[in-house]
């Protein structure tokens, strides 16, 4: 028979104001097995914990129940207290009488009665608890970073600088990400390439960093400390060890009609290409879908002109399998498709562009060599209109419900740069709200207005219509309450950003959760913002939520520290609340194996001794390092052979019985 101690917390007045704590103690003391019951102001305090430890020792307690706040808050605190007093930490149960009771009920009678029942359920459960031993698992001292943008690069650099191996997997032919497409960065107006390129070079040169470009994560198995990952290195058709990066192949390639992704389709590229001049690695890839050689079998120009003999049409995709202790997701973002916003004529007029397209137009390496011009007739504009919140803050299905956060600032940046470089261009910004929280951000925006004469009009635009070779912008000025009908030369849409669509696939592989907008969910919105709820998975950059470059870099560093903290350990303590099969009851039917999301259950032929009968049976075997303790198998098992430690059938039934009594 267990000797149970019950500890009821007042939580100041949080609990005590609505629950008659003394009555809970009194009722608990009468429960079978309870040999000690007391209450205290703050059980989680050092003094409170001391009370628990003393009672355990004095009364020889074998299990304890703490009636307090949510176990999500202090279960660990009390488990540690129990352990310090010499009993197994899993002999602790929490009755949640704060979040689930005192905070939501007003009537003291009702709340007290409920608190007593919750305490009884916890007592009934703890009576059936058994000491559980945590196992250990190894930590592979290597990290994987998925995505080679500024978030991924920074995370990799910080992990590598701490002395651990890091691999970056990047889907496109070069690392660099969105930031490499930007012209200048707010609020300081540094050239984006000037600050990014050195980081790219540093990452490439770092002895601890391996970069897999033109590669994708194909399969992930394992768990925190020991993930096994298959990386598909897509065939580049160019031998990286031979290519000198001279670029002749790209010049001579006869297939030049493919939309240039890096320039957002504003111009075209050759079928063999590097996305941009500073690409790392500076080795081109052949886009086989658009290559004449691959489509027709004829051509082979690139191979002929390559002096290094690096072109390899026979190259195959390659699978690299590697083990990692931690994985960082840094898959970044893209702008949303604008096909649902045709009132702004994006799909009909080439002079209506997105802000990211404008970045490319403004960039000296872009399709117009940095000259501001209209894409329809290549004439310089005399006036430009910027429209904010296109697709952001939309409650309807056309757009995104959230604020994309970066648009207000980059629009101010664009407006300022244009007014600075082309003072003759009239710039008007239609806004709903200007949101500029951040150091020197509002000052930046005000400069655009006050020093550069950018015309900010409050009011969302209703329609952009082509009229002759102009664009007619139809809106209202909400401050003046009057109609605006403005003819302009170019319209720039501050398009909402969304997580890279690939993230769904990756999240599924990693069993990391994502929200309704496809952003990865953090473990705690405030206190664990760079960790996924799935152990060993960390988040860096916009894949977690909209953010600008400084925030991304900060988060990348934070994720790196969390990874380093994990990799610094030699072993991890595993959760002992895992499934366990009773070999004497197991039919060997495989039902449990089919529902296990972790592949933690295998079957083996084992000799069992069933009350004297020795025979070889096919029985389930749970790998406790892989099992995460969901319990799906326990219900699939018809015979009840499979049970979950810490949440056993008998324990849950005991809670049910106590509540229904």
């Amino acid at each position, binding site marked *: 028979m267990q000797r149970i101690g019950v500890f009821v917390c007042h939580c100041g007045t949080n609990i005590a104001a609505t629950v008659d704590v003394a009555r809970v103690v009194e009722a608990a003391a009468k429960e079978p097995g309870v040999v000690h019951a007391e209450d205290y102001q703050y059980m989680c305090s050092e003094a409170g914990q001391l009370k628990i430890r003393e009672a355990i020792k004095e009364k020889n307690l074998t299990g304890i129940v703490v009636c307090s706040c*949510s*176990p*999500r808050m202090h279960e660990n605190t009390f488990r540690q207290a129990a352990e310090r007093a010499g009993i197994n930490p899993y002999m602790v149960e929490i009755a*949640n009488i*704060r*979040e*689930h*009771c005192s*905070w*939501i*009920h*007003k*009537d003291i009678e*009702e*709340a007290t*009665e*409920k608190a007593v*029942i*919750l305490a009884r*359920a916890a007592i009934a459960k703890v009576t059936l608890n058994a000491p559980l031993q945590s196992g250990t698992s190894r930590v592979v001292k290597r990290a994987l970073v998925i995505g080679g943008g500024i978030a991924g690069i920074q995370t990799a650099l910080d992990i590598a600088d701490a002395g651990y191996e890091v691999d970056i997997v990047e889907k496109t032919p070069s690392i660099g990400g969105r930031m490499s497409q930007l012209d200048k960065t707010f609020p300081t107006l540094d050239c984006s390439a000037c600050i990014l390129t050195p980081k790219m070079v540093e990452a490439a040169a770092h002895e601890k960093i391996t970069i897999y470009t033109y590669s994708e994560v194909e399969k992930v198995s394992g768990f925190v400390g020991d993930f096994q990952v298959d990386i598909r290195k897509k065939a580049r058709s160019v031998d990286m060890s031979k290519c000198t990066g001279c670029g002749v192949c790209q010049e001579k390639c006869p297939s030049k009609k493919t939309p240039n992704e890096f320039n957002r389709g504003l111009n075209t590229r050759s079928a063999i290409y590097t996305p941009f001049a500073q690409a790392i690695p500076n080795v081109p890839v052949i886009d086989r879908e658009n290559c004449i050689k691959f489509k027709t079998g004829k051509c082979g120009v690139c191979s002929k002109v390559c002096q290094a003999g690096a072109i390899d049409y026979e190259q195959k995709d390659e699978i690299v399998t590697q083990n990692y202790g931690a994985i960082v997701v840094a898959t970044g973002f893209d702008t949303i498709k604008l096909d649902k916003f045709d009132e702004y004529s994006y799909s009909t007029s080439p002079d209506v562009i997105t802000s990211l397209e404008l970045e490319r137009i403004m960039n000296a390496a872009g399709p117009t060599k940095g000259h501001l011009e209209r894409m329809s007739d290549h004439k310089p504009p005399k006036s430009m209109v910027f429209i904010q919140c296109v697709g952001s803050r939309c409650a309807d299905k056309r757009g995104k419900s959230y604020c994309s956060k970066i648009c207000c600032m980059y629009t101010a940046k664009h407006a300022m740069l244009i007014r600075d470089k082309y003072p003759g261009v009239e710039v008007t910004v239609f806004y709903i709200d200007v949101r500029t929280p951040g150091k020197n951000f509002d000052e930046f925006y005000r400069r655009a207005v006050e020093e550069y004469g950018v015309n900010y009009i409050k009011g969302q635009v209703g329609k952009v219509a082509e009229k002759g070779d102009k664009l007619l912008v139809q809106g209202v000025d909400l401050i003046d309450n009057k109609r605006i009908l403005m003819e302009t030369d170019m319209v720039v849409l501050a398009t909402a950003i969304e997580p890279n669509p690939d993230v769904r696939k990756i999240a*599924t592989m990693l*069993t990391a*959760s*994502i*929200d309704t907008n496809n952003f990865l*969910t953090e473990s705690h919105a405030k206190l664990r913002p760079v960790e996924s*709820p*799935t152990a060993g998975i960390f988040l860096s950059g916009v894949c977690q939520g909209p953010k600008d470059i400084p925030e991304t870099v900060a988060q990348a560093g934070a994720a790196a520290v969390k990874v380093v903290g994990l990799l610094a350990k030699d072993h991890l303590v595993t959760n002992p*609340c895992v499934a366990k099969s009773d070999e004497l009851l197991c039919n060997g039917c495989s039902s449990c194996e089919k*529902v296990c*999301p972790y592949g933690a259950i295998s079957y083996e032929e084992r000799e069992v001794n069933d009350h004297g009968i020795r025979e070889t049976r096919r029985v389930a075997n749970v790998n406790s390092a892989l099992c*995460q*303790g*969901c*319990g*799906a198998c*326990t*219900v*699939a098992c018809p015979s009840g052979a499979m049970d*979950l430690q810490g*949440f056993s*059938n008998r324990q*849950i*039934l005991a*809670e*049910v*019985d106590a*509540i*229904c*009594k």
Partner: protein
Amino acid sequence: MQVEKTQEFRPKIVAFCCNWCSYAGADLAGSSRLAYPADVKIIRVPCSCRVNPMFILRAFQRGADGVILCGCHPGDCHYTTGNYYARRRMTLLFSMLDYLGVENGRTRVEWVSAAEGVKFSTTMNEFVAKIHSLGENVRLGDLRCKKD
């Protein structure tokens, strides 16, 4: 001879909540002070897929008037797929209970995320109201339906 009950009907309601979403949602309802009746008692399970139909039947057999199972939204399961299995199991179980002629309003599944404190509270309020309208559970207590 039955003594006439003067006491107001106080239903017994068991809510199974998965640890990652719904239990956290219930915590959020608590920290947001979103009230729901004290008749609801929550049992924490790691995942909605841990809930064996036997637990639910046991609750009814022991006098529960309503049982509700809350889990992560489909697609958001902490264990990736647990709630999909739970969804099938509960669909079939509820349909069977209905087939046996017991009020199917006494069972419910609701997907509540950790962020949906409001939904948790409204769901519980609705569910308690529903159980009030159905009254005390008589039929579900003994599914063998044995006549006296």
